[in-house]
């Protein structure tokens, strides 16, 4: 059994090269193991980050450059647990902001998505915090928001075909509800106004005296990947300013967190957002279930982007 093989073996040179290659590869794996199989972020690093973030101006948002660190960042850093850090609509409205991540994670694909059509911001500073790093950016194109349907949700007048909806944050309507909520859209949290109404009912969300700049920017998406998987029902969105129809779109959930924009005149206007979901429910294993909603979620802000 221990007799050597009588079949042709690789040449000595080839065998040595192959063995050397395999052993060399394994040695590289040893080195990699020494790096990857231990925590790179120590408790002191979180402490340092906490102290540093506490000293930042409150209106400068902090976002994550390492998205999967989210739960730990929210646990250690109050600043990262705020809604503006957890579930931003996009990167607009923040002329100066910060990105916290593992050392080297100065930007992320999530931030790139949220940048949308704005130019890349300028990195103006880096602060090393052990295994973490804080990167400071400036984005002149972000401009300043004037008003926000989400932040000012209590100021909205919400109506449906059945009449006015009651409540301030959670609106109860005759055909369902309109809530300020966190929606999962493309596996990311978004803070928005979630509409759960019967088939074909239009929700009218009116901001009576909305301070406006030169543009209204918003997003719409459909909550929950399960619902998106189990319904393709479209949604109609209309934006009216002073009761004048400015834009109308038909949206499908395949469009994800879809941005839209309407130009406005600076001042104060009555802005109304109308959403009409075609079909409320989803098709489950047992058939159509109206109670498991394919619920759209929308946000709208006014901004001054040009010279005011």
């Amino acid at each position, binding site marked *: 059994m221990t007799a050597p093989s009588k079949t042709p*073996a690789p040449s000595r040179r080839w065998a040595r090269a192959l063995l050397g290659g395999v052993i060399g590869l394994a040695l590289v794996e040893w080195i990699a193991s020494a790096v*990857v199989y231990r925590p790179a972020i120590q408790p002191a690093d979180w402490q340092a980050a906490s102290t540093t973030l506490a000293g930042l101006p409150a209106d400068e948002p902090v976002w994550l450059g390492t998205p*999967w660190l989210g739960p730990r960042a929210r646990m250690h850093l109050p600043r990262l647990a705020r809604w503006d850090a957890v579930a931003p609509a996009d990167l607009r409205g923040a002329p100066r902001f910060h990105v916290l991540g593992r050392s080297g994670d100065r930007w992320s694909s999530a931030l790139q998505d949220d940048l949308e059509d704005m130019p890349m911001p300028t990195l103006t500073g880096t602060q090393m915090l052990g295994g973490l790093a804080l990167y400071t950016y400036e984005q002149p194109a972000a401009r300043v928001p004037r008003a926000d349907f989400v932040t000012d949700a209590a100021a909205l007048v919400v109506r449906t075909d059945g009449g006015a909806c009651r409540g301030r944050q959670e609106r109860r309507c005759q055909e369902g509800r309109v809530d300020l909520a966190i929606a999962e859209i493309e596996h990311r949290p978004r803070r928005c106004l979630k509409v759960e109404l019967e088939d074909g009912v239009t929700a009218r969300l009116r901001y009576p005296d909305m301070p406006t700049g030169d543009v209204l920017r918003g997003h719409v998406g459909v909550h929950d990947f399960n619902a998106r998987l189990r319904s393709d029902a479209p949604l109609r969105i209309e934006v009216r300013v002073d009761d004048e129809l400015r834009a109308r779109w038909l949206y499908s959930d395949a469009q994800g967190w879809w941005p839209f924009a309407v130009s406005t005149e600076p001042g104060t206007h009555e802005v109304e957002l109308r959403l009409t979901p075609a079909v409320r429910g989803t098709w489950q294993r047992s058939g159509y279930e109206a109670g498991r909603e394919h619920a759209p979620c929308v946000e709208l802000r006014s901004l001054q982007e040009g010279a005011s």
Partner: protein
Amino acid sequence: MSEVDDRNEVEDEVEVVAYRASNEPPAENDEPRSTRRLRRPPAVWLLALALGLLTVVLLARGHRDVGYVRDEGIYFDASRRYAAWVVAVAKDPGRLSDRKLRDKHFATNHEHPVLMKILGGLSARLLTDPPPKQAKRTTRGTAAPRGMPEGAAMRLPAQILAGLGVSLLMLVGHAWGRSITAGLLAAGWFILLPRVAFHAGLHAFDVPVAVAIFGVALAYRAALRRRAWGWIVGPLLGVAIAIKHNALFVGPLLALHYYACLAWGRWRHGHAITRAQWLPLPLLSMALLAPLVAWSLWPWMWTDPVARLLDYFAFHQQHSWYNMELLGENYNQPPMPISYVSIMTWATVPTALLVLSGLGLWLGGRAELRAPETPPPATARWSRPLPPGWSRLDVLWLAILGLFPLVLISLPNTPIFGGTKHWLTAYPFLALAAAVAWRELWQAAKPGRHGRWLEPAALVVCLGPAAISTIDGHPYNLSQYAPLAGGPRGAADLGLNRGFWGHTLSELWPTLQQIPGPLYLHDMHELARRQYEREGRWPASLDPAPARRARSGLLFHELHMGVEEQSLWQRMGTTAPMQVLSLDDVPLTSLYVEPVEEPHRGR
């Protein structure tokens, strides 16, 4: 018997395990059987035994820290019921034919065969003190029974099978690789992988069926030259099928291999194929005895077998698509990317080991293609259809069994239901292929006097990354990734699955004792929770509840679980977890608790 026949008998004996890359003839100096048997050093047997025992001990102890995975919760429950039936029948054998009794006990989890669950249930009855059914529930929770925890006892049979697999790999790796280091490489290649080590310790079927299939394949290979193995291979396959349905593919695959051997012998070497070879004993044994044994080991199938068998096949053909993250995308419906298995195999098995396996297949194939002409083979018989002189195409045997599971799961319409565990059946064969490469390369490299230390040192270098990875990942090795994938952090960057079984709890136990209930369990199965409760490990104050009524909640991180986490944020009024369980910085589980004071909440 002729001289040639005598030599062949010797060859038969040793080739039960010894690898021949070709149909090389018996050596001139082949010795009598008894002498050849003795030439395998006793140290190898002892080492194989020791490695097997060490594996069982380490799994039995180490997996006390591994939480109960979702599937185990169901299997624990089923195991108790099945074992109760065995005990009832043992007391009164007449009840064996009692259909109502059988169906009452075996209806639970009847979509899987029962062998491992019966063994687990019996193990618990033997080793748990007091017997689980007598564990008393106190006013809140259950008092901890003395002795071995029931779950640990139920896991033991699978752990013993894993130990057996390691011993087998050591023996066969040694025989094929012709050195102790080759045997150690084969054994280590398998059991030191984080995913294998994780699954090997569970009360589940994936590593047991991998070991069983390996055993069947070895028995089949031996059966091509020895009658006794021909009779054994069928029942062995039946046992494997009684462990898990993966084994259903083995018979056809081995038949494919057999007919490829016939075709190869005819085409390449001009051997005549006799009538006795067309439907030989090993194939008939697998075709006839395996179903009988599998059926006899599954009492659920004793009633209305055709309908229930069809039901069983239908369940697995129409299995749900689970969610699985790959490169940052969540997949839950066909088509799944064909690259899924390749990426996950690379990301969870150290690359040097994969390269060795690939080299083993390549060098084995090369040797087979360049094998010299052989003298006419001995007469083939029905009971020994490929006698010496006929190649058993070992490299094809390795390739078919080592690559088929990967190819099958790679098909875009194969449902995803469990990540890497569904192709663990390939790994013993890939490990053996690595041992072949080891032998071929060291023999050709002729390291001279340096070989004495160079070969063991190289072995340590090659197996080290897998061992380090497993030690680092314990008890969360379902979330562990290979060093060149960057470990858990690299996998999180790449967007690879973080876990899917709701078991990552180990470091949370002290906190769970102190938080307010009720608790949202998220992906922890209620039956797994009840198992903790039966063992006195579950905090009495933590009744389970849906997220909308909970005051605390668990969240096992996966890409598609964002909805669940957001429900907890809204219910708890905070986005900040109280505790995060991480593996090398990467969050696996978050524990949310309704804040008593002003939280640093999302606002």
